[in-house]
Every structure is written in C-alpha cells, then in structure tokens.
C-alpha cells in the first residue's frame, strides 16, 4: 500500500474506507500524509520542523486531529483533510499524544503525561476543558462513543464513561499497547 523510505507509521483508515492517513518521513521530516488505499501518490498535509504523529479522522472524513511537537512538547492539532494550516487544540496539558476522535464527532480521547505516568483524557470538542478519566494510555473509542479501550502495561481495559466502571479485558500477555477496535 505504501512504499517509501524512512519510517512510515500510525496509519488510520478514513471512515469511508477509501483513504489512509499516516506519518511518513520520505521528504525529510515526519509529517502527516494522506494516500489512497490502492497506492499512488501520498499527499502531505503538514509541514513543520517538528514531529507529527497519530492522525485520527473525524466521522465525516473532513478533518483530522493529530499530535505535533512543533511548539516544543507534543500537542493536539486539528486540520482539514484537504489541507490548510493546522490549529492547536488547547487541552491544558503539556504532553498530549494518541488522539482518538469519537464516532459521534463530539469528543477526542488522548494520552497525557503527568507526574511521570500516563493518563487517558477526554475533551469535548464543542467546548469545555479536558478531564482525566483513567490511568493508562492509547485510548480508542467504541462505536457508541461511550466506551474506551486503553492500555495499562500488561492489561487492556474497557472504560464505560457513563458509569465510570472499568473492566480488564486482556491480561497476562506481557506488554500490550496500541489497541484498535473493529466496527
């Protein structure tokens, strides 16, 4: 699907299944690109001296949220899938990575680092601040935009944001991380 030098990682397939956003470094810097799933030219979305990573699509495929450390430490940014300039999302946290855009389009979950550990945070994109909902990292939304799966070392956990209840769904397999959820 992609054949390019450097490091290609963090692929996210668009909601319509026709495109893929990912980080590529072929042009001399880790940037966000969009490419068709059948190969062809990759189109670059970002252009900075920093590291862009972890793109996540909006439900309608019109925008992406990604992480960029161009300002120093990694922060969340939002950009149109057609290009333009990305705008930073103010979360109130100094280290924000691994964004996951909820299927209802209203929220973004992401990893923050604080106090030497990682936490899962959720932010309402319509306004309001971000809040920590669990200790762990790599959050991904379930289809109902109510449940999150995230990792904590050797465990994968399911969090019900409505009830606050957490259930361990995978354990005992050594280090587990970066889960994804089939729809």
């Amino acid at each position, binding site marked *: 699907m992609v054949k390019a030098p450097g*490091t290609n990682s*963090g692929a996210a397939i668009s909601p319509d299944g026709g495109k893929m956003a990912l980080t590529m470094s072929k*042009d*001399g810097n880790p940037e966000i690109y969009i490419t068709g799933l059948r190969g062809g030219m990759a189109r670059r979305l970002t252009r900075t001296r*920093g590291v862009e990573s*972890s793109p996540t699509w909006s439900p309608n495929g019109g925008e992406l949220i990604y*992480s960029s450390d161009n300002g120093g430490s990694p922060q969340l940014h939002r950009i149109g899938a057609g290009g333009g300039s990305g705008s930073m999302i103010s979360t109130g946290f100094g280290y924000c990575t691994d964004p996951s855009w909820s299927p209802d389009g209203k929220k973004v979950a992401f990893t923050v680092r604080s106090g030497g550990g990682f936490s899962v945070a959720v932010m309402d994109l319509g306004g309001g601040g971000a809040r920590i909902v669990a200790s762990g990292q*790599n959050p991904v939304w379930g289809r109902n935009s109510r449940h999150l799966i995230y990792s904590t070392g050797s465990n994968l956990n399911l969090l019900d944001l409505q009830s606050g209840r957490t259930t361990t769904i995978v354990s005992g397999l050594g280090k587990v991380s970066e889960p994804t959820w089939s729809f």
Partner: protein
Amino acid sequence: MPSESPMKKPFFLALALGLALLAPSCKTKDQFASGMDGDFVDGVPLPERTDGASYLGGGVSKGQFSPVQFGFDSFEVSGGEMGKVQAVADFMRSSKQNVIIAGFTDERGTEEYNRGLGERRALAVREKLIGMGIGGGRVQTVSFGEEMPVSSGGGEAAWAANRRAEFGIIR
C-alpha cells in the same frame, strides 16, 4: 563568449531523443519514488531504500561508529556530539559505502510519538552529514522508537543511553 561546436549538435540531438524515449518509463517508475510531492521540508528527500539496507539485516554493519546521544524529548545534535558525526562524514568521504541511521528514544513517551521522535533524531543527524558535504542520497534513516534499548534499567543514566542515533554501514 564560447560558441557551441557544430560537432556537438548531433550528439545533443541524439541525447535529447534518447531522453524523450526514456521519459515514459521514468515517469512510471517515479510514481512510487520519494519526493514526488515536489516540495520538501529540508530540500533533500530520502533516497529509496535499497536492497540489503535493512538496519537489522545482514547487509548492514553496526557498531563501527559511536552513537549520537540526545537530550530528553529533543532532536537537537549538540556541539559535543558533532565529533561523532564528523567521524562518519570523514569515513564516507574516503569510502563509497552508504549509511543508514537508526533513531531511538527512551521509554518515557507514548510509542507512536517515540517512533516519530526517533525518526526525527535520525534525520537530524542526516542533516548534519549533508551539511558536511555528504550527499543526501547516501544516507537513509529508520526509527525504532523506544524498542531495542541498550540499557534496560530505569533511571536517568539508562534513559540517556537509550536516546541515541546509531550508524549502520551498508555493505
């Protein structure tokens, strides 16, 4: 003003015709080449990965040069590390062998971000080599993020050792 020799005209016509005949095949090949977007961040896109240039493969010799170390969450090549880059540049000037640079991070970051940071470190060292006159087409990069630490213990000493860019010589 020098004038063009009449003897050269047939040669140039033949050359132009040859290039024109080659053009369709070049275009097809280049559809998958790097740098086709036409605008580059640093002006020097990465070369295509050649056969045998896998950093972990048998075609790459590792450990010949000291790794470049980095500060926490940084991809700046400090002045104190430049001697290591210079040693590789000196070697490349006297050799036809190419280099692949592998970037690594410590464990204090999320994995995907660390993959990008490791790649940025490798690219930062590549930029220094290019600045020393080494052709960008001779230097490839790869990132392993926080994987394959040289020191598995925790603490600042181990983290500092793991924040590095290693050099592999492509045989």
